[in-house]
């Protein structure tokens, strides 16, 4: 049967969420002839709809439904109802993302083995490795058109990059370049080259940056095998007496509750909503939530340790001109415990416009120490720290007492830094400042982590069912026809921005699901 599908059609794969994980999985399955209904809580926005304005764009795209927070992280104080800055829209957070597309380093797939046990951390090896992922990474890089792969040239360096590069090279860093970016440096796949507009976080109006919203999703729809239902908020996953899932209940655009039957359900709502949905789907058979016999649903929340370093100079930089994330230093990404911590971090240029700089440079700060920094906004350069944070069982998503507009319990996000995270961030602040000092910074500003953009780990992948929620294929240990398809399946976070890995895992999972369906196992 061709899309649209009936609510009663129990032959469809239902995918919840259409971001990096769900959007790619939907297309990959549709290309293989599998019938897919993708349910997306947000609306559909395309390049012509995006706005070059930070707060207006936030209002258009961001997930602003209530969430609550706890723990030591500063976000809980400064942005208590905004633990993450992510998107509610067809295409998910791939509308927002900067496009940095890095493979994990081989040792990072086996963090426990390579770092050893770390006190207070729940480190674990992934049940898959670099060799197994290599062909899927290759396909993901081709799909996303990642620069410096597939003979695609790197992007040209903007002003912000030139300051960063000069400082990094003076410091002796070797792996310094304009990044592996899912942004066209030349026309490709019918999408044009980057015009250096500088609003990558607000949705790329030229379509130069890869986003599932205008690539994979329409490609899947064109097959006739994919139906995307927008403004469809999934409330619950349903199951039968045998413990298999049978469909989902969702609120449609009018706020009416609908029930879509399903042969397979794939959860891809990002790392807060995916565990929230599993926890909200508790039943007498699964009293602690669906797929949660291990008690691991919602636990081991990771967000990369992050932080930024901005610096002011005597003369203008105008960092907002050009790609938002325009270059990288990779020398610190290695695992080298002599620095006082396990794992590593990447340094990547970053720019915020004046309105977001005012909101995020030092939330809550006021007076001249703060405003004189903004007075030098035109002379500012900036970078972001992305480092591997330690999984901790106590960092977790639970159901809050608060309810959303549908009367569903919302996610509470609890996070506190591990000492390894703090040691790594301090090291990165020092190195970041040294880069700018090397080219004459008049002032450096170690900036605290923003609301999370990388959200990982809350339904983690594990070899043994007692250690995690899903197996090596993202399939729930407890429920044979339930999958997790987004960043929440990450066993550990590695130092790299996560999306290329989420996409590679989705490509791999599509192959697995299609093959299981063909064999009649699913």
């Amino acid at each position, binding site marked *: 049967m061709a899309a649209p599908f009936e609510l009663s059609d129990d032959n469809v794969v239902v995918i919840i969420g259409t971001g990096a994980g769900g959007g790619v999985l939907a297309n990959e399955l549709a290309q293989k002839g599998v019938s897919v209904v993708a349910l997306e809580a947000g609306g559909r926005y395309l390049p012509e709809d995006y706005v070059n304005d930070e707060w207006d764009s936030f209002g258009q795209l961001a997930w602003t439904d209530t969430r609550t927070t706890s723990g030591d992280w500063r976000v809980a104080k400064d942005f208590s109802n905004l633990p993450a800055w992510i998107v509610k829209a067809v295409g998910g957070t791939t509308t927002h993302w900067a496009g940095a597309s890095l493979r994990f380093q081989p040792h990072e797939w086996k963090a426990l083995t390579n770092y050893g046990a770390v006190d207070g951390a729940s480190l674990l090896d992934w049940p898959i490795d670099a060799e197994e992922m290599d062909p899927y990474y290759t396909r993901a890089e081709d799909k996303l058109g990642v620069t410096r792969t597939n003979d695609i040239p790197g992007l040209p360096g903007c002003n912000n990059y030139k*300051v960063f590069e000069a400082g990094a090279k003076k410091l002796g860093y070797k792996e310094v370049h304009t990044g592996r970016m899912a942004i066209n440096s030349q026309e490709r796949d019918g999408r044009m080259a980057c015009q250096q507009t*500088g609003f990558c976080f607000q949705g790329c109006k030229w379509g130069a940056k890869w986003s599932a919203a205008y690539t994979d999703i329409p490609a899947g729809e064109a097959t006739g095998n994919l139906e995307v239902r927008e403004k469809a908020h999934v409330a619950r996953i349903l199951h039968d007496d045998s413990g298999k899932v049978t469909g989902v209940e969702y609120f449609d655009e009018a706020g009416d509750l609908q029930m879509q039957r399903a042969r397979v359900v794939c959860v891809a709502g990002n790392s807060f909503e995916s565990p929230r949905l599993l926890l909200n789907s508790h039943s007498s058979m699964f009293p602690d939530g669906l797929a949660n016999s291990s008690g691991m649903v919602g636990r081991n929340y990771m967000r990369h340790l992050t932080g930024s370093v901005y610096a002011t100079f005597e003369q203008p930089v105008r960092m907002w001109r050009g790609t938002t994330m325009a270059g990288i230093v990779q020398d610190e990404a290695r695992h080298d415990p002599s620095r006082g911590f396990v794992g590593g971090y990447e340094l990547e240029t970053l720019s915020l416009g004046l309105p977001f700089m005012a909101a995020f440079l030092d939330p809550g700060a006021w007076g001249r120490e703060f405003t004189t920094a903004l007075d030098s*906004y035109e002379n500012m350069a900036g970078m972001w720290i992305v480092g591997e944070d330690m999984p901790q069982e106590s960092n977790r998503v639970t159901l809050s007492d608060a309810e959303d507009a549908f009367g569903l319990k919302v996610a509470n996000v609890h996070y506190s830094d591990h000492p390894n995270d703090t040691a790594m961030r301090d090291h990165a602040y020092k190195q970041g400042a040294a880069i700018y000092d090397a080219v004459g910074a008049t002032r450096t500003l170690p900036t605290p982590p923003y609301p999370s953009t990388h959200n990982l780990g809350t339904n983690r992948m594990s070899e043994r069912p007692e250690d995690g929620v899903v197996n090596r294929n993202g399939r729930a240990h407890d429920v044979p026809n339930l999958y997790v398809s987004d960043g929440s399946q990450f066993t550990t976070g590695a130092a790299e921005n996560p999306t290329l890995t989420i996409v590679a895992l989705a490509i791999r999972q599509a192959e697995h699901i299609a093959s299981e369906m063909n064999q009649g196992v699913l």
Partner: protein
Amino acid sequence: MIETRSLKTLTRRQLLSRGVAAGAGLVVGSGFVAGRDAAWATEMDAMKPESFATLVQMARDIYPHDKVGDQYYAAAVKGYDVPEEVDFAQAGIDMLDEASRAAGFDSYLGAGWEADRVAILRGIEDTDFFQRIRGGLVTGLYNQKEVWPIFGYEGESYSKGGYMYRGFDDITWI
């Protein structure tokens, strides 16, 4: 942006003759607050003009930018000059004046040095009043498009073709 409305028709001299100087750069008259140079003025809808002048000065003391004129601070706090907000604002301003008297000044506006006013603000920074005013300014002040050029920020760029041919890599000093 603050509206000048009927006050626009007044000459600078007429305007200034109808008010008295208050704080650093403000003139308070009956029913209006204006810049000392009369380049802008705003009529009050619900708030006492002296109270609004205090709020403008407080806004500047929280986020002082010497290149940013008072009219932008006034625009950022004009939202409190409505019946639903005025009681909240007035209670906070009364508290601020009270704290200023305790510090030996006539009022908040009577403290001539920024350092003295900042010390007074530090004493009340944990109050809801201070936090709401400060929080509101983050967008109220910095999200005014008219303010952006003062900081060099260029805003929207798509309609101009981005910066591909307009200086994305024009840095020369590095």
